[in-house]
């Protein structure tokens, strides 16, 4: 399941960049976020995964969609083809090779199972295998370096219940503390949200002259919604 989610995230990420219309890009961005949120939930940090969905998909992508809606994007100037496309390929190649260089030198020196005498492809395979089994050993408490032991279903794993073993999941423990011990912080955060509701309304109300029934010559200029 972890593999499927990470594959989905990478594929969606590629499609964000290469899709033609900006709205399709935003949809694939949503898919990236959802895949990464699922990955995080499977990893054991349930709260962070759920907050990814709430914050990223619920607020950031909605903001992106509003911006795309409001600015006039000519679709013709977005579709780069021919020489405009190929002139960017060397730069992309350079950036990609820098990333892979970093993978093979900096990160690979932290895994003791990588030894010398291997080719690039085996390095890459070993790095991927080493990362996943390292995570399995660290978080799921398994002592065998077997790649097939990745969790296929959602079980509350060790790191999820580590903060509050009696109540279980991370979301549960955060919630039980937030609503009792730190309730004052929740109230202040709600006041901040109240301000965030009032502020756009105050800033964008329209000024309309209203003829009130009681006014003779001194009609009050009032701000109401358009």
């Amino acid at each position, binding site marked *: 399941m972890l593999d499927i989610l990470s594959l989905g995230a990478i594929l969606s990420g590629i499609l964000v960049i290469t899709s033609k219309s900006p709205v399709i890009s935003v949809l694939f961005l949503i898919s990236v976020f959802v895949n990464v949120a699922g990955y995080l939930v499977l990893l054991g940090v349930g709260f962070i995964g759920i907050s990814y969905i709430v914050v990223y998909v619920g607020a950031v992508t909605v903001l992106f969609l509003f911006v795309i809606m409001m600015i006039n994007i000519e679709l013709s100037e977005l579709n780069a083809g021919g020489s405009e496309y190929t002139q960017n390929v060397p730069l992309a190649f350079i950036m990609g090779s820098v990333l892979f260089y970093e993978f093979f030198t900096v990160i690979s020196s932290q895994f003791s199972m990588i030894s010398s005498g291997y080719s690039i492809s085996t390095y890459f395979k070993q790095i991927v295998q080493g990362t996943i089994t390292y995570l399995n050993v660290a978080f799921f408490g398994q002592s065998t370096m077997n790649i097939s032991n990745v969790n296929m279903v959602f079980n509350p794993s060790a790191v999820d219940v580590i903060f509050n073993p009696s109540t279980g999941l991370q979301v549960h423990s955060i919630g039980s503390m937030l609503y009792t011990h*730190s309730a*004052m*912080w929740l109230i*202040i*955060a709600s*006041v*901040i949200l*109240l*301000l*965030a509701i*009032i*502020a756009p309304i*105050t*800033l*964008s109300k329209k*000024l309309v*002259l*209203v003829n*009130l029934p009681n006014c003779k010559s*001194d*009609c*009050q*200029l*009032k*701000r109401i919604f358009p």
Partner: protein
Amino acid sequence: MLTISLISLLIAVPLFSYRITPDLFNRITSLSLAFAGYLSGFFHVTNLSQGIEVFLLVVGSIILISWANFSINTSRYGSETPTISEYSLLIIFTTIGGSLLISSSDIVSMFLSIELQSFAVYVLATLYRNSESATAAGLKYFLLGGLSSSLILLGTALIYSNTGLTHFDSIYNLLSVEDIDSGVFRGVQLGIVLIGVGFLFKVAAAPFHNWAPDVYDGTVLGLSQYKIKRLLTYSTISHVGFLLLALSMNTQESVESFIFYLVQYTITNVNVFIVLLALGYIISNTPYDIEFIEQLKSQFGQNPFLSVSFAVCLFSIAGIPPLIGFFAKQIVLYSSMNENNASFIGYYFLSITAILVSVISAFYYLKIVQAMYFEKSTSFSEIRSSDGERSTIELSESTLYKATSVSNLHSVAIATLTIVIVLFIFQPIILLNSCHLLALSLFYY
């Protein structure tokens, strides 16, 4: 109490705003702020935090008095926007955030209070949508405030990751038994430096002060010394420098001088701005927002009392005895050179620099006084000839601005604050004793 008034105002503003004018809302809010200053308390309440909170709330109520208090007449409005009912609501949000910040004793509550207070002030800065300079100022303030908040957040994250604690007392306990060279101490030091930088950004202390003149003045143009509000911004920046000097020595006298300087500076600054507002209401043929020093020419002949109050406030900012500003500077500089305390040597270089700087800056305040008292007034439409875009608008609008009167409450506020500044020397014991007791409660309880 503040939250209750906030909720009731929230309901009242949209439902009853055709009956209750915005200036009434402002007065109700200022009353509730004054009462909340009398009885309130949040988080970790000490004598010091409660004393300063009282002061903060009373100042908030004074600020609310002086705005939006003329009778609404539709023929008056050219390009200026009329009053906004939610102004008082935003002031309550700011004051709630400020008083929570004073009493906060945890990192998370400090951050939440800073955000609450800052957001409301961002909205206040961009409230006049028709003025392009105001929206630019508000956007600039929002971006820089967001930057400084994220710096503060980075500092708190560093402190939490190095100590595992968020409560101020717990961090103090941990650090008092830690070795200086340990990684924990260094990590917390870096976190505190980042939090300090973020806070200095927020109060516009040099060298992080570049955003302040543009935001206060409402433009993004370059430096121009003939704008009043820009000049007042630079005076604020230098006042913040004095406050930081008083705060950086950790002696009991310096904390007392810090509190006294803060009280005095707030009173004087509020008085300057509300006198400026009153002058904007009274002088005919100007918009309600006085921007240039030339608009204040020969005010002594036309409005003698207002110009006398303005001059008193400016002299107090410059530090001329026997006004209150002089004593504030004197007590800060005295505590910075005091050698009686066993563990403190004296900040000689800083004190000499502060004295020289305050002498030089007195020139700029006296320039306003000179314009008001010794120059003849020119008609308003001749001033803007260099700025081509504004001049055509001004000529057609100069007949639209009729002078209106200053309300009674506004002039009472101006008079009270001016009298406090002038007559402080006859009964200084009230303010000085309070500051002394508050500082003592911090050091020996």
